[in-house]
């Protein structure tokens, strides 16, 4: 039994290879980009708009408001990163209802990659907002003794992000696979439904935590 889509390799040339994770990710990316481009190709700014535009607007406004509620003043700056995290993870997890589908988020490589993106985005946004010196000084707060703990915190929370998402999705997929062998008719359906819920919740948790980390980084001055 293959626990990760990484193990399904389609093409390999030395160190370079193309596995199921990457292919599924490309497919999801294509779906998202093409549908977005198709819907937004003739947007209207009138009072009456198309249903698809309305759906996209609802999603975008919802993400915007969520970012604002967490404490980021100008959500338009962060919506591309945080919104894409949520939509990608959410869509990847929702697609688990399709048979033979293996979510790329069930791969530790994907979750690690996303967690590294969050890990790098925190200093990127922090430095862009407050400058390099102020950002680096934040590791010495409240005293320089806290420097190692702050560094450990940075690494451990990134690790936690990656493993949390991977663990949840992988376990969900694995439970369904195990149940299929034990009780192949009813329980897998129930567990798949539970898996959908868990998938959405994980997408939400991942993006909200990323927002919280970024918000903590750019609000250094305010706290100080």
């Amino acid at each position, binding site marked *: 039994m293959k*626990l*990760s889509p*990484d193990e399904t390799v389609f093409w390999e040339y030395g*160190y*370079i*290879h193309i*596995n199921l*994770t*990457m292919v599924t*990710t*490309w497919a999801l*990316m294509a779906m*998202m*980009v093409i549908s*977005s*481009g198709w819907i*937004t190709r003739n*947007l*209207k*700014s*009138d*009072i009456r*708009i198309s249903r698809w*535009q309305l759906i*996209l*607007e609802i999603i*975008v*406004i919802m993400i*915007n408001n969520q970012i604002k509620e967490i404490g980021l003043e100008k959500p*338009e700056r962060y*919506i*591309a*990163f945080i*919104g*894409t*995290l949520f*939509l*990608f993870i959410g869509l990847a997890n929702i697609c688990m209802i399709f048979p033979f589908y293996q979510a*790329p988020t069930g*791969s*530790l*490589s*994907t979750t*690690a*990659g*996303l967690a*590294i*993106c969050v890990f790098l985005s925190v200093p990127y946004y922090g430095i862009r907002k407050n400058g390099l010196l102020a950002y680096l000084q934040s590791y010495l707060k409240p005293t320089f003794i806290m420097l190692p703990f702050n560094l450990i915190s940075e690494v451990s929370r990134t690790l936690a992000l990656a493993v949390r998402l991977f663990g949840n999705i992988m376990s969900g997929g694995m439970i369904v696979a195990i149940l299929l062998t034990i009780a192949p008719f009813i329980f897998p359906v129930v567990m798949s439904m539970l898996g959908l819920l868990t998938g959405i919740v994980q997408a939400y948790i991942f993006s909200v935590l990323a927002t919280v980390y970024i918000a903590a980084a750019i609000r250094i001055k305010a706290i100080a």
Partner: protein
Amino acid sequence: MQIDWFTVVAQILNFLILVGLLRRFLYQPILNAIDAREKKIASQLEEAASKKEEAEKEKELFLHKNEDFDRAKMELMKKAHDDSEQKRLQLLEEARNEASTMRTQLVKTTMEAHHSLKQEIQEKVHREVFAITQKMLSDLASMDLEDQTIKVFLGRLKTLNEAEKRQFLEAFQSSSTPILVRSAFDLPEKKREEIEQTVSQVIGVQAHFLFKTVPELVSGIELTTKGYKLAWSIAEYLHALEKNIAETAIEKSKTVFDKT
């Protein structure tokens, strides 16, 4: 469970590419559309607010104009009412004046009618009575009647009181003409002398006399000097009769006028 670092790097790149693509195809257009709509709605609301404000101003203006119009209307109505009242009073006054004038005119006309009637009656009575009397007297005329007339006249002369005598004397003295004695019949010389003597006795002065015969006196005799007259004739009684008739006619006309 191992991490495939090539896949990690590939997924990081995939994610960053997806971020860029979605920013280009999803977030930016949607946010722009939302902003444009919000601006549009805001401008529409602003426009609506300005239109509302304008409408409020218009409303105020119209209310003000309405008030002015009502006030002007009330003033015009009041003026018209006052004018009509004034006109009514004026017309009433004119009507009263006219009625008064007409009433006066009516009274005057009535009086004139009565006067003319009276005159007519008088003349008619005169004529009739004179005609009858003359007819009767001419039928009865005789020396005795003339004598009796002269006797009564002389008796009257003699019975003048002091005031009348003095009045007679004063009139005679202020006159340069002789005393005129008119009679309806020719006085014989003897009667003339008798009259002259009686007058001289009454006034105590010798006077000149002028005797004239005037048939209209109707069996009468009359003595006149300046401002003084003493007479006896049937005409006097006829005058009394006329006067009574005239007074009766006036009384009756007054009664008729008061009723109208």
